[in-house]
């Protein structure tokens, strides 16, 4: 975040410097028009009213799904731009001074409003109700926090989340690095190979859960329909119910996340590897280093910052993992993770106090990693 470049005084041919200093007075748009400004405000109000009216129509109509969706799209897409436009027209009716003063707030106002309603206010609210009981009526002090560190399911979820944080980032980074390095040496097919490994990034966690059912499926007898058991029984073993086989079922779930996140690690690391200067590698080669030495002593140290950013980013994603566990095992068979517990406690069991306390726990766990991440990221930006 560098400071914005100062508006450099322009020395264009059509803007002679000197006497013509104040540029903010194009001919024709002078003083302020109270009547027209009121009209503009009326326009803003009218647009908002129209949007609410369309919205109500959407809710109550029994038209088919397609028209509803089309109208909804128009409302969302055109509405937001129309709002900015009408507000700007209204501001145009103010005096010169007024325009300069008000317009910036028109431009950033909607952003601040959205952030206030959807991030700032909820964060404060969540912290407050984490000290209240299940229905947010009475203050209960630290009871919810005491609970989340003693309840057996919660303790398991914290333990499992630790395991996730250790396993997923390291495997995803290792695989990603391997693909990035190896594909870089291919004479052709590099982009195809990378695209295929990257593809799972486009798949939702829910979709991935369904996909991996075809791998983990279990039948107690007869033909196996899951690939893993197909291989396992072909080797002469009895079939295993991978998703209820504690504690290794956690690894089965982590594999899904590794499958998705490796592509991310690969793409970022690949860009970093290609950025390692050639003469650095050439120098190492001339010094007699073999390819392994070059990789571990030259390439890896050079891209260490990127590796850390990738690992921390995946760690944050892992700390927020919910869908995979919720859809594949529902948090049963000892596979609880912290975000899954949060949704279970507040959404299924209606305990807002405990749910909020778990959210606060996540928040506290994520902040230090985020700070490391942003610092590293900015350091890297500064180098570029």
């Amino acid at each position, binding site marked *: 975040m560098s400071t914005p470049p100062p508006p450099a005084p322009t020395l264009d041919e059509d803007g002679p410097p000197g006497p013509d200093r104040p*540029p903010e007075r194009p001919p024709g748009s002078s003083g302020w028009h109270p009547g027209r400004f009121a009209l503009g405000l009326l326009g803003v109000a009218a647009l908002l009213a129209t949007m609410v009216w369309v919205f109500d129509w959407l809710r109550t109509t029994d038209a088919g799904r397609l028209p509803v969706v089309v109208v909804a799209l128009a409302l969302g897409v055109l509405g937001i731009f129309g709002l900015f436009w009408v507000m700007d027209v209204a501001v145009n009716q103010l005096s010169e001074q007024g325009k300069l003063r008000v317009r910036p707030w028109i431009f950033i106002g909607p952003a601040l409003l959205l952030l206030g309603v959807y991030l700032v206010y909820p964060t404060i609210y969540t912290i407050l109700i984490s000290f209240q009981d299940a229905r947010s009526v009475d203050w209960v002090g630290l009871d919810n926090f005491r609970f989340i560190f003693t309840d057996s399911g919660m303790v398991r979820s914290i333990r499992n989340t630790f395991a996730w944080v250790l396993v997923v980032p390291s495997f995803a980074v290792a695989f990603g690095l391997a693909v990035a390095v190896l594909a870089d040496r291919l004479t052709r097919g590099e982009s195809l190979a990378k695209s295929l490994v990257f593809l799972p990034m486009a798949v*939702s966690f829910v979709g991935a859960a369904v996909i991996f059912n075809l791998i983990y499926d279990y039948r107690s007898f007869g033909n196996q329909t899951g690939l893993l058991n197909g291989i396992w029984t072909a080797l002469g073993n009895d079939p295993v119910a991978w998703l209820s086989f504690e504690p290794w079922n956690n690894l089965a779930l982590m594999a899904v996340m590794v499958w998705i996140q490796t592509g991310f690690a690969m793409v970022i690391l690949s860009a970093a590897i290609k950025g390692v200067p050639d003469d*650095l590698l050439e120098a190492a080669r001339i010094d007699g280093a073999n390819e392994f030495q070059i990789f571990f002593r030259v390439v890896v140290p050079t891209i260490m910052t990127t590796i850390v950013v990738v690992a921390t980013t995946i760690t944050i994603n892992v700390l927020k993992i919910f869908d995979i566990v919720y859809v594949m095992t529902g948090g049963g068979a000892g596979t609880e993770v912290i975000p899954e517990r949060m*949704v279970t406690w507040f959404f299924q069991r209606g305990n807002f106090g405990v749910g909020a306390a778990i959210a606060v726990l996540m928040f506290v766990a994520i902040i230090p990693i985020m700070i490391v991440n942003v610092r590293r990221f900015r350091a890297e930006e500064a180098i570029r």
Partner: protein
Amino acid sequence: MSTTTETPRETELPPEQPPPPAAKPGKGGPVRRFFQGWGVRLSVLAIVVLWIIPTVGLLISSFRSRSFIESEGWWTAFARPFAEGQWTLQNYQIALTQQGFDNAFLNSLAVTIPSTVIPITVAAFAAYAFTWMRFKGRNLIFMGVVALIVIPLHMALIPVLRLYTQGAELWGITLFPQTQLVGTFPAIWLAHSGFGLPLAVYLLRNYVGSLPASVIESAKVDGASDFQVFTRLVVPLSVPALAAFATLQFLWVWNDYLIALVLLGGTPDVRVLTVALAGLQGQFGQMRHVLPAAAFISIMLPMVVFFSLQRYFVRGLTAGAVKG
């Protein structure tokens, strides 16, 4: 890496240069040749195969008839690809017409497109103001907005749900009316927009800030208003950054399950693809032959977007590696 690190290395080189020519073919040679030859190709192939097996399994299963899906593994299709009655489109037909995935697809579109356009529009205006307008507290507000990146959306889930069902009051003044917003599209658009905004503002502000100041200034001198400069100059020039964030946000919203589940819910008329798919997965046994087709319907569009806009997507990922 700047030139400062390279110079000492190059100065180090001359004294050591004599021995390597002799050692190079003997020591580094075979290993290096292995790495550039079949070893590399085979290891890449192995990883790629490992990575696409699950998706291939899904694709094959989605076209297999019910009796085949229930009686044997999908990989047996490779052994006897022409077995009678094996291939069918019925799974897709059932998913779309009987299981409501046609509606769910439309709902996913209705949720995702505005949830992408709104934060981009709002963030682009804000980024413009943060870069080219002067007002009190500009840098402070910008830092505050960027700091919000650290907040996981889980923190917002309970309060936003309550806001939508109960409204908000402060000292008897209604700040947020008591509307039944849960289960409506705007409810989820605005939530996704709010959650995506900090990153969008950060990315776009960085990009807009790198545009040449002289171009914007001279347009203003020529009498263009801020709104005109924004729509005719800044937006067209920022297309790469806008596209990068758009692909990121599009995939994120399309694939989201948690927010859709909590704020939109599972009723058939509004539920999106992820919610419908999770619901189908929950019905054990009965619908397992439809699941692969349903899953494929839900991952089709993101794959198309992903492949056609991969360039922008990668750029967005690289720039947005800090997202919380």
